[in-house]
C-alpha cells in the first residue's frame, strides 16, 4: 500500500488518481501509524515551503525521516522533493530532511517566475525511477524555487540555469516536476516507483 501524505497543503487528488489508474492501492493519510504501516510513501506538495511546517507540528516529520532512513521507498514530488534537501530560501526556519545536500533557491530575475509548463529532461545516469524515460522527454512543472544539481541528481532541466529535475539515493526519490500531470511519461515514472 502506498501512503500519500496529507499535511493540509493543496490538492492531493491528482496523485491518488494516477495511482488508482495504475491499479496501485494508495491512500491519502495524515496518520503517522498509517505511514509507518505503508509499504511506500509519497510526499506530494504544491505551494509555499512554509506549508511544510505542518509536518513538524503533527509529528509526521519523524515518521517520514524514520521511514526513509529505514529504506522504505519514498517519493517526494515538487515541494515534497524540496523537503528532501536541507532547506529553502523560501522559508528559512523550516529545516528540510537533509537527505540531499544544499538549499532550494528562487529562479533568477532573468526568467519569468513561476516556471510553469512542459520542460525537457536531461537524464544524467542510470536511475531506477526514470527507467525507460528517454532523453529529452517532456514533463510538467509549476514552481518558483528549485533544488541544486547534486551528485544524486538523475535528471536536470534548464530554466535560466540547470536545476535538479530528479534525485535518487537508495530508495529515496524526488522529482521537481509533477509526474501525475506529465502524461504517459509521468505515469511510467509512477509505475516505476510502484515497482521499486
Amino acid at each position: 500500500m502506498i501512503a500519500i501524505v496529507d499535511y493540509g497543503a493543496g490538492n492531493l487528488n491528482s496523485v491518488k488518481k494516477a495511482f488508482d489508474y495504475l491499479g496501485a492501492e494508495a491512500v491519502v493519510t495524515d496518520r503517522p501509524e498509517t505511514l509507518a504501516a505503508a509499504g511506500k510513501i509519497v510526499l506530494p506538495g504544491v505551494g509555499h515551503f512554509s506549508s511544510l511546517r505542518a509536518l513538524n507540528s503533527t509529528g509526521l516529520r519523524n515518521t517520514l525521516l524514520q521511514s526513509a532512513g529505514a529504506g522504505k521507498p519514498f517519493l517526494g514530488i515538487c515541494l515534497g522533493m524540496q523537503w528532501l534537501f536541507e532547506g529553502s530560501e523560501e522559508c528559512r526556519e523550516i529545516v528540510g530532511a537533509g537527505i540531499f545536500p544544499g538549499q532550494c533557491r528562487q529562479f533568477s530575475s532573468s526568467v519569468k517566475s513561476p516556471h510553469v509548463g512542459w520542460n525537457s529532461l536531461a537524464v544524467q545516469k542510470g536511475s531506477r525511477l526514470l527507467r525507460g524515460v528517454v532523453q529529452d522527454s517532456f514533463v510538467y512543472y509549476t514552481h518558483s524555487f528549485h533544488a541544486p544539481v547534486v551528485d544524486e541528481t538523475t535528471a536536470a532541466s534548464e530554466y535560466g540555469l540547470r536545476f535538479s529535475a530528479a534525485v535518487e539515493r537508495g530508495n529515496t526519490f524526488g522529482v521537481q516536476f509533477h509526474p501525475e500531470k506529465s502524461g504517459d511519461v509521468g505515469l511510467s515514472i509512477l509505475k516505476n516507483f510502484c515497482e521499486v
Partner: protein
Amino acid sequence: MLTKRIIACLDMDGGRVVKGVKFKNLRDAGDPAECAAAHARSGADEIVMLDITATSGNRRTMLDTVRRTARSLFIPFTVGGGIRRLEDAAAVFDAGADKIAINSAAVRDPTLIGKIAERFGSQAVMVAIDARKVDSGFAVFVAGGRLPTGRDAVSWAQEAAACGAGEILLTSMDRDGTQSGFDCGLVRAVAEAVSIPVIASGGAGSARDFIEVFRHGRADAALAASIFHFGIGNIAEQKRELHHAGVPVRWPC
C-alpha cells in the same frame, strides 16, 4: 527548454461541449470527457473547461462532468465558470481540477484570488480576463462579455498577479471564435506587464497564428477551442508546424 503550451479549451453548457462566435451562437461539439481525452492524445499540453452559462442548476452537472473528465486525464486540467466563493473552488478541486479559473468574481472581489491561492497555491489560480480594444487601450468585461467593468486589462492583470494569481488567461473578445488570429497587441501589452505566465485566447485559426502570438505577442501559452473541434485542425498538426518553424513545443509528445 521550457516549451510554449497549446491548450485546448472546452466551453461547456449543460454537460456538453459547445462553441460560439464572439461569445454567441452556440453549437454542440460533443461529450466533454471524450473531447478532453482526445485532445490529450493528440498533443494538447493542458485542458481548460469553462462553464459558460454557469447557472446554479448547472453546478452539479458541471462537478459531475469535471469528476468524469479528470478520472483519466493526466495533463493539467483547469476548470472555470461560476466560481464565486472559496467553497466553489474547493468543490471543483475536490472533483479533480488542478487549477481553477475565475473571472467575474475576481473583479467583484479581488481578495478571492488570494483566498484561493493561500489554500491551494498560486499555481492553482488562473485569473481569466475578457478584454476588448477601445480607444484608450483594452477594456475588461465580465459576465460572459456582457458587462463593462471600467477596468483596463493591463492594470487589472497586474493587480491580479499581485493578489496571488498564478497565470492570466487573456481572451480577446474581438477575436473570439473568428479564427482571424490572436490579438498580439493585447497579449503583448499584458505579457510584458506581469511576471506570471500569460495564456493568449481568442482568434486561433492556423499554426501561423500560434507562431505570431508566441513571437510577437510574447505569450507563454495559447488556447484554442474552435479550430480543434469540428475537424478543422488537430493539435498534433499545429504542433508539428510550430516545431518546424522553430517554436519550442512539446513535440513529439
